[in-house]
């Protein structure tokens, strides 16, 4: 059999995990100098397709492949892969960023000058030169994602496969990332990108493939396929209308619910928050935005008590909570982390959602009622008997949100809740925030400005550890408005 000059030639009849078919009847070619985008709802088979395209299925990930996957341009490896969660792709073989990026070329047994050239080139192309001597574990999610891309680029593989690479990036970093990917394409690289951010996908890809329930739903030019109205698949959603107007909010009572006054906090010698003050009113949902490493997550951890405030005060209502231990603060304040796997342990989804209220002393019957209500809001009520470990990561994230909602805190903070979520998932998270609004207030730490515009009343921009701007959500800096 002969193949045209493609970096990837894939003809798959079925791919199955433990006998369960995840993908069927997919044909996909990617040529050098081309960016092909993959879109689809959660569980559509996007990551399976990406792993198969990179040649990783059946090796590190056990799966049965019925079909043919060829990388006609060869290469060792034939494809480089960037994962959605940057912390999971550290090999730990390198102590510094530079050494981590060098791992691939070292495995290819290249000579040291060539490795040096590859590392410097990859770091330069991802604007990560300044990170070269940093320790990977100490980087923010966005910085780590740039290192992950640099590590993939250093392999100099004919095909680059990106699985939701911008989920952890701030808009500016995502724009830089997109520029780097375009430059790669222009340099002759073949790129396959799985992306939930449809605006980014439409601006990047030369053509897209839309998956639904493990099969191809549509293929073609990005704006034509993703811009259809109504959308091809309501779970996936469509491109954001450019004339989209922010929702008009009914006037809400502005009784201050959370007040942070002159708070400074940090880790060791490093001060992250500097004399930060903000107030959030009853019935408000606000977005905390800012660049990677600006201090958004540290602010949430300080309010929760996980990071000790070196100075300043934190009040919920009229109650000063600065001296309260974390488990006592949990009666008033909730925090959902980026990685839900830190907390899931129960045998069923319902038990998991019940754990918080039960720990806080709520009776079993009330806890069950609260948990069921929260699960229904995030769309998991039909799955309450399933094991949390069996849920897709995006659903685990929604379960973590439901678990926090079930405890009924007055103030709830969600850290990057929409990462990897499709339109359906984002709608559920928005519903969760509306429920929280009716009970108190909420803050969303996010780089997803589109979601912030839809779901939040205003944004608080955090820069260098203090509040630099408070105002309406604007998409001026969003990737959809390059």
């Amino acid at each position, binding site marked *: 059999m002969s193949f045209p000059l493609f970096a990837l030639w894939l003809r798959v009849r079925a791919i199955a995990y433990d006998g369960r078919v995840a993908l069927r009847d997919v044909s996909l070619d990617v040529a050098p100098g081309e960016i092909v985008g993959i879109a689809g709802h959660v569980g559509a088979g996007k990551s399976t397709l990406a792993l198969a395209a*990179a040649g*990783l299925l059946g*090796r*590190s*990930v056990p799966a049965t492949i019925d079909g043919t996957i060829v990388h006609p341009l060869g290469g060792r*490896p034939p494809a480089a*892969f960037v*994962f959605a969660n940057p912390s*999971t*792709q*550290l*090999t*730990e*073989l*390198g*102590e510094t960023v*530079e*050494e981590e990026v*060098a*791992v*691939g*070329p*070292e*495995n*290819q*047994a*290249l*000579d*040291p000058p060539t*490795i040096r050239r590859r590392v410097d080139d990859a770091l330069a192309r991802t604007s990560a030169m300044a990170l070269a001597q940093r320790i990977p*574990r100490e980087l923010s999610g966005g910085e780590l994602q740039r290192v992950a891309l640099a*590590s*993939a680029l250093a*392999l100099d593989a004919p095909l680059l496969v990106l699985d939701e690479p911008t989920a952890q990036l701030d808009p500016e970093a995502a724009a830089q990332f997109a520029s780097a990917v375009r430059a790669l394409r222009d340099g002759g690289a073949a790129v396959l990108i799985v992306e939930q951010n449809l605006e980014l996908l439409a601006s990047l890809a030369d053509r897209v493939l839309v998956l639904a329930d493990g099969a191809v739903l549509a293929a073609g030019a990005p704006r034509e396929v993703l811009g259809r109205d109504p959308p091809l698949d309501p779970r996936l959603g469509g491109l954001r209308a450019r004339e989209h107007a922010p929702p008009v909010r009914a006037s809400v009572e502005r009784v201050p619910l959370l007040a942070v006054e002159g708070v400074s906090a940090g880790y060791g010698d490093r001060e992250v928050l500097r004399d930060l003050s903000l107030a959030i009113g009853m019935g408000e949902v606000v977005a905390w935005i800012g660049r990677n490493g600006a201090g958004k997550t540290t602010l949430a*951890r300080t309010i*929760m008590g*996980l990071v000790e405030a070196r100075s300043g005060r934190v009040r919920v209502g009229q109650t000063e909570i600065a001296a309260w*231990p*974390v*488990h006592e603060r*949990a*009666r008033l304040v*909730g*925090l959902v*982390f980026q*990685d839900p*796997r*830190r*907390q*899931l*342990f*129960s045998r069923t989804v319902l038990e998991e959602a019940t*754990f*918080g209220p039960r*720990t*806080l002393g709520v009776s079993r019957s009330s806890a069950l009622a609260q948990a069921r209500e929260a699960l229904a809001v995030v769309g998991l009520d039909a799955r309450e008997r399933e094991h949390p*470990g069996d849920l897709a990561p995006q659903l685990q994230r929604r379960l973590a949100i439901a*678990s*926090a909602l079930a*405890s009924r805190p007055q103030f709830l903070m969600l850290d990057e809740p929409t990462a990897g979520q499709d339109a359906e998932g984002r709608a559920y998270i928005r519903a969760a925030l509306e429920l929280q609004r009716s009970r108190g207030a909420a803050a969303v730490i996010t780089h997803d400005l589109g979601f912030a515009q839809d779901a939040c009343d205003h944004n608080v921009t955090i820069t260098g550890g203090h509040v630099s701007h408070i105002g309406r959500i604007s998409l001026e800096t969003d990737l959809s408005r390059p």
Partner: protein
Amino acid sequence: MTSALDRWNPLTPLAAAVAMVLAAFAGPQPYAPALVLALALLVAFASDIGLEVTALTMLVVLPTFALLVLLDAAFPEAGSAQRQWIPSRAGVLDALAISLRLGAAIAALGVIVTGVAPRRLTRALAARGLPAWAAYLVIASLEAVPDARRRAQDVIDAQRCRGVAVGKGTGVRGRLRVLPALAGPLIVGLVTESEERALALDARAFDPRAARTTLAPIADPEAEQWARRVIWLALAAVIAWRLWQFAQSLTIAT
């Protein structure tokens, strides 16, 4: 981590440490272990790792010495004049000799463990033909404890945010009650992380059987290569001398 030992090719201090350990056991007692212990501590303090190495050594030596003296006092030799619970002079000297040898070994190897960056050591060993899987095994083993500690802290933080009380004042029952909430995500997380790490390595063309090169090869000056040869020769001489002594003792006994 950097230390004064980083000026050397890691194989040189490693060879010296191995030689010192063997010399401490094979050399004349108790002078050889005493000399090795002093030398190791001297190198440790000169390399700014003296306190760590001393603490590590004492952590092993003091309990060992105390235990041996206690055993001697608890079980006097049958027929001897030694009274129970009063250690004999010979027993104390034996305990001192054993502890000294152990201390010398711990101090010599402690200098390597504390003062030589593991990734430098594995790079140097890889240049000598250490397979990729072995290098990864060394690093993964060294990183396993801090990794698990980091993940455990993440899990504790997440569960405290759900109202779980940990630490002082929670009592045994309280701790047992929250154990599944803390242990569950930790164990699952460690398993998942190892699978993800395998995938990450695979994605970076890692082949456990293949040879690897390195971005920054560790310099191995000729002087150090000669120094290591001298160390191995000296070590061989000490072992040969001990074997000769052993053979002599057998001859006399016959």
